């Protein structure tokens, strides 16, 4: 009987893993390669976010205090280096940009990014930040292959540099399609360094989407092991009780 239990468990487990992979939707994007356990990466991501993103984007569900706790930073470090708005330590991260102005500047208020990774997935965010290119036809001068006609200028250009599109050989009558992007000018970072920077930002936003993920991973293994141990004891108990059933 114990063999049957084990095989049932293995089957259920296999179905679970299968289900999670089958659901991967949309065009396949390269993996962002994020790792929430990499605290240094989270810290670098937070640093980049507060230097390049928070001017427009809020994290209205994320408290400075929680961030300090989870990222291993002190109150001073957070309040001196990451807080530019005079918010209190227990406040959430709200951008300085007045929403009305934002509406005027971009035609669309920059979205709150608290749940961006939950909504779009880390791979999407990673690809999005890699896919800005110069587009003279766009009112803001930039465009994006992952989110065409995005209303967002590209604040990281000084790090990555400027990309331009390489077009596919167009068939007559078809709209021209972009084959890939290529760097026109290198920015302050090499391509590898930029990839890592974008990965760090994505990692940080993944953490912001669900700070509890750190706790989940911390406790999860012990809970599952405890329950498997419990099951084994329950099985021994069952065997003992059922000895006299024939």
């Amino acid at each position: 009987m114990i063999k049957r239990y084990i095989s049932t468990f293995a089957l259920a487990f296999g179905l679970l893993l299968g289900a999670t992979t089958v659901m991967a939707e949309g065009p396949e994007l390269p993996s962002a390669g994020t790792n929430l356990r990499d605290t240094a990466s989270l810290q670098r991501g937070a640093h980049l976010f507060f230097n390049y993103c928070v001017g427009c984007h809020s994290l209205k569900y994320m408290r400075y205090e929680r961030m300090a706790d989870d990222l291993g930073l002190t109150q001073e470090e957070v309040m001196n280096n990451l807080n530019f708005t005079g918010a209190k330590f227990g406040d959430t991260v709200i951008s300085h940009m007045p929403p009305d102005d934002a509406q005027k500047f971009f035609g669309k208020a920059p979205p709150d990014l608290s749940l961006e990774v939950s909504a779009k997935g880390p791979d999407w965010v990673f690809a999005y930040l890699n896919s800005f290119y110069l587009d003279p036809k766009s009112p803001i001068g930039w465009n994006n292959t992952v989110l065409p006609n995005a209303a967002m200028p590209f604040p990281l250009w000084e790090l990555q540099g400027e990309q331009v599109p390489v077009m596919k050989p167009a068939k007559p009558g078809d709209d021209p399609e972009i084959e890939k992007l290529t760097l026109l000018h290198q920015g302050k970072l090499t391509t590898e360094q930029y990839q890592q920077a974008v990965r760090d930002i994505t990692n940080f936003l993944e953490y912001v989407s669900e700070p509890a993920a750190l706790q989940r991973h911390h406790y999860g293994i012990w809970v599952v092991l405890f329950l498997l141990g419990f099951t084994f004891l329950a099985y021994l108990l069952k065997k003992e009780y059922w000895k006299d059933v024939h």
Partner: protein
Amino acid sequence: MANVFSNIGEWVSERAPGLMPVYRKHMTEYYAPKNFNIWYYFGSLALLVLVNQIVTGIFLTMNYDPSAAGAFDSVQYIMRDVEWGWLIRYMHSTGASLFFVVIYLHMFRGIMYGSYQKPRELVWLLGMLIFLVLMAEAFMGYVLPWGNMSFWGAKVIVSLFGTIPVIGKDLVEWIMGDYLPADATLNRFFALHVIALPLVLLLLVVLHLAALHEVGSNNPDGVDVKHGPKGNRWDPTKPADGIPFHPYYTVKDLVGVGLFLAIAAFIIFFQPTLGGWFLEHDNSVAANNLVTPLQIKPVWYFTAFYAIVRMIPSAMGTAVWGVLGMFGSIALLFALPWIDAGKVKSIRYRGTGYKVALTLFILAFFGLVFIGTDLTDDYFPKWFGQDIDITAWDNVFGRVLVLIYFGFFVFLWLYTHLGWEKTKPVPERVTTHD
């Protein structure tokens, strides 16, 4: 210490002499067949999940704000600021999906071993009522987080009632209390989700169990142990093949509970969204009546029935046929005890035709889930080439599957009422146990 307990026991028994006999009737002197297999875990597991939903639900209610302005924020408040709020919410959301996993397996067990047949029709009907109420409960619960998929899901599902001729439009407004899902909708769905439907569910579960314990449990052989030889170690008048539910099946169910909880804990702690199956990505965006999600579809446990709505075309100027088809697909399950006039209960001794039909029925159900979740958008181009018309293929496949789903019931009626089924001999007594 033991003395204190027995004194309390005596004290209670003197004042409520009816309590112990009830306990004995349903636990220590409820004689269940000794050959239950793995399929018999899902009843007690359903009860476990129900308790989990109620307990975690109570704690969620303490911090949830049932208003259109505050609902979405309050869920994030629970996820971030409430101590262990994330765990409570994931237990509730994972529990919701696992409830359907367990209930579907429980229903399949009932069909496979003919547990709905005489004399257990009432048990089956009460169980189907539980399933129906559970669907309403799950739908309303899904609306509460007020994400964008909650909003659009509510709009689409409530709109199904709009296909009813004459009164449809007014009915939709009446259900929502507004022209769109709004504050009024959320308030009433909350009331129904946390008070009305759970009360109905609990009552139905009690009746389901009471009805079961009146007629006794079926088993994988479909042999009625009550009609077999009498006399076991505990009681000379009770079935020889029966064993007391407590402690035998309580300790056995404990093993199932442990395994089930281990799987549930794995999901809760490592894959709470299960790649979008249990918690959908689009629901991480707050409800917005101006932005439609790319694909509006219900959570996986409704998709088979939703696919039936989609696959049945409009005719005679109304789309009501799809909705009738969906309700019909559930109504036919209610009628199963009268559709199936089989002489034999368990699949072990039934005719080949039945086995083939049941297999096709289950495959059709999975196929409809597949189409209902729009997975075909990803897979049909991979299988049949990039240039195919996905909707057309959906319709061809889906309609065949709908025909198989309904065909199962037609076939079963003909097969058993016209005496086409060739059954195998059923043993006198139950054959195995493990």
